[in-house]
């Protein structure tokens, strides 16, 4: 085992008048730094969760830029329709309910996974996917209504940034749904093996993160839009 402890002695000793006594006193005061220099094996997926968290944080930055664009352009209607003419808060409230319910049902899927029940995990994943599908359906219905009235992304800067922000969130939810169905099949085929548990945990982070982004969307896009 190679450590940096020896090298560290000299590194610390040089500025401290070069006496070993000084180093010993220093080391007894603070714990000796200990570095592992050689490679050692990690179990598969050891760092997946941290890596996936960092991916989610990068996704968060993507959304923050889209929010910033909406914040800047959200008031430029180009004499076109304003949020008040387009948004129906009842539909948004329904949509928010769907996503919130899907969050708690995914939690139930994780609890079923923890108690090693394949069937219940799959059922709760299916329920979550159902709510997710409702969310996407309602959102597409809303988009369809807006586009039919002529409020297309080309109409004004407000609508361009609106469709980009809300559409990107919708695409993320759709990707999450594809992932969820894939995992339901995988859990069915292989059971709740280590790899599948890891994947379910990653999807859990992804799904709850999308709910967090939606909090920003319904607050700053829809509710603030009605206040403008």
């Amino acid at each position, binding site marked *: 085992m190679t450590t940096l402890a020896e090298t560290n002695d000299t590194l610390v000793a040089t500025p401290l008048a070069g006496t070993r006594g000084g180093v010993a006193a220093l080391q007894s005061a603070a714990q000796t730094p200990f570095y592992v220099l050689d490679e050692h094996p990690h179990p598969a997926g050891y760092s997946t969760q941290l890596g996936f*968290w960092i991916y989610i944080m990068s996704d968060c930055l993507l959304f*923050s830029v889209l929010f910033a664009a909406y*914040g800047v352009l959200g008031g430029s209607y180009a004499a076109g329709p304003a949020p008040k003419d387009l948004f129906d808060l009842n539909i948004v409230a329904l949509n928010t*309910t769907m996503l919130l319910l899907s969050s708690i049902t995914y939690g139930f899927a994780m*609890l079923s996974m923890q108690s090693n029940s394949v069937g219940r995990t799959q059922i709760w994943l299916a329920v979550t996917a159902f709510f997710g599908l409702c969310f996407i359906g309602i959102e597409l219905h809303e988009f369809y209504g807006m586009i039919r009235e002529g409020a297309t992304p080309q109409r004004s800067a407000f609508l361009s940034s609106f469709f980009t922000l809300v559409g990107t969130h919708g695409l993320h939810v759709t990707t999450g749904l594809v992932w969820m169905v894939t995992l339901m099949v995988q859990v069915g085929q292989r059971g709740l093996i280590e790899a599948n548990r890891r994947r379910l945990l990653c999807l859990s982070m992804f799904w709850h993160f999308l709910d*967090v982004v939606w909090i920003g969307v319904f*607050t700053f896009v829809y509710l603030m839009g*009605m206040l403008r």
Partner: protein
Amino acid sequence: MNDAHASHGGAHDVAHAAAHDSHEPHITLDGYLIGFGLSVILTAVPFYLVMSGVLESKTATAFAITILAVVQIVVHMVYFLHLDAKSEAGWNLMALIFTAVILIIALTGSLWIMYHLKVNMMPMNMSHLP
């Protein structure tokens, strides 16, 4: 030396396995239900504030729903994403703080600069053009 290394490796694997077991966050039904209950309240209140217009001033309403959104985001982070200072030896939280700093810079910077750009822009009215 070889022996020592092997035995150390063995000990290391055991330590890793133990660390790996605690890797999966322990999820409880109570945690999820508390988080869900708080989320429902924190979602319903801003919708009620805007839809009924209880608060006379729009600024006050906007301020209130912003605060409620921030609180709800924290609730989701704690109860649904199981974020705490201990997970991944604090690196999760570090990454989150870094992201939050960048996010605040990007949002406030964009809004601030673009607002001043708009205010200080020469008035350009199409009707004045020939």
